[in-house]
């Protein structure tokens, strides 16, 4: 039994070492190539490998060659049992203001193995606060938005996609 425990401990340690030493920057460059085929490009970013976290500073986002905005800080952390993707201070192209909020203060997407059916979403932008989840099994995206009153008219086009629930919270659901 003790030997089995030791083997498990060594296996766990080896996996953690693999994650720590994994070539995250090169993996990101490979992902970029895949995103390029989808016409999504992160440009002019500074890529930094910080052990378990990959950080991208000041990325400019382009979709089909159109400038979408700039994101000050993107960080992806993986600990196998717990993974997170965070965006901080995203300034989106003002020409897209009626489709997307102009500024996103933060957006955190977290996934933990102990709750496999729930990828949580939490964020805040000039439009208000958002919360929600993705259920990868039922392929459902559920977003709840607490919109700031003064932004209701500004983002009327975007808000049309949301429907109020019984509590008056704006909800958007998408099955993919």
């Amino acid at each position, binding site marked *: 039994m003790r030997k089995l425990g030791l083997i498990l401990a060594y296996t766990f*340690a080896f996996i953690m*070492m*693999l994650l720590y030493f994994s070539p995250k920057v*090169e993996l990101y*460059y*490979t992902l970029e190539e895949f995103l390029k085929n989808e016409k999504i490009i992160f440009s002019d970013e500074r*890529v930094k490998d910080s052990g378990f976290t990959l950080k991208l500073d000041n990325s400019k986002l382009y979709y089909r*060659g159109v400038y979408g905005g700039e994101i000050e800080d993107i960080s992806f952390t993986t600990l196998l049992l717990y993974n997170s993707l965070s965006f901080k201070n995203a300034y989106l192209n003002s020409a897209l203001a*009626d489709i997307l909020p102009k500024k996103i203060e933060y957006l955190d997407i977290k996934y933990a193995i102990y709750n496999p059916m729930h990828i949580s979403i939490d964020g805040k932008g000039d439009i208000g606060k958002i919360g929600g989840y993705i259920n990868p099994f039922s392929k459902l995206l559920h977003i709840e938005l607490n919109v700031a009153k003064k932004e209701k008219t500004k983002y009327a086009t975007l808000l049309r996609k949301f429907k109020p629930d019984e509590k008056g919270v704006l909800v958007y659901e998408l099955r993919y």
Partner: protein
Amino acid sequence: MNLDISRYSKTAVTLLILAAIAKALSLSSIYFLNRSGVSQTVDNSYTMPYKSYRFSKPFGIVDVVVKSEDIVKVNQPVYNLSSLELKAIYKTSKNGSDGGFIVALDNTKGKRSVFIKMLSEYNGYTLKELTNEKATFERNGQKYKLEFKKKKSSSLIQEPIARPNRQKYSDDVIRAVSKSEVHKYTKDFKSIWKSISIKEVKQNGKIDGFKVTSIKQGTIFDKLGLKKDDIIISVNNKPMKSYASAFKIYKDVKTMTSLKITVKRNNQTKDLEYEIY
């Protein structure tokens, strides 16, 4: 005690070996991965803003054609001028275009009599037209009327004013598009896609224009003379080779005074030209 040290050192050695294996694996995996990132090339070169130069213009020849049958009546608000009280109209031609003046009482200055000559300015209002019943002033493009024996009022009256209809032109004339109509679309990005749908046209895997797949009747794009199946090749002589170039036109159109859309229609290249006024 000796046993413990050997056990710890054994664990440490095992962990070091595992770390070395993990590092070796990660290093070898680099061989299969990309070692450089992707960047977007942005064209920062300065280009002169597009201007439509017509050599006939300095000689007073304006080639914007508005046909008489294209004149329609549209409702434009006309305000009553409440600060003045009309007393007399003197005009030398039917609409006073050759000259004339009015006599009015200025209510803001204790009913003082004032004489206002045709095309002269009074308190920012320019006298533009005279009829037997009323005088029409203009201020900042807005029309104001002054009539005999009317009560002081600031109410809004809808009155038809002649305006050119930009709906039906032949293909070879320069069309006129109002700035406000253009601004309406630049403010509401989504309304564009409700009015027109376009699809990229590719040649050798690269975008070589945008095909108009549908166009809603009565919208600005319909009025502009674009037709279904037209392939937009360039705008203001800039080739439409990417979504970015199309988006740049959308961003810059607010500041444009003229617009030239080159389309391929029935395998023939055609220029659609517009003055934005």
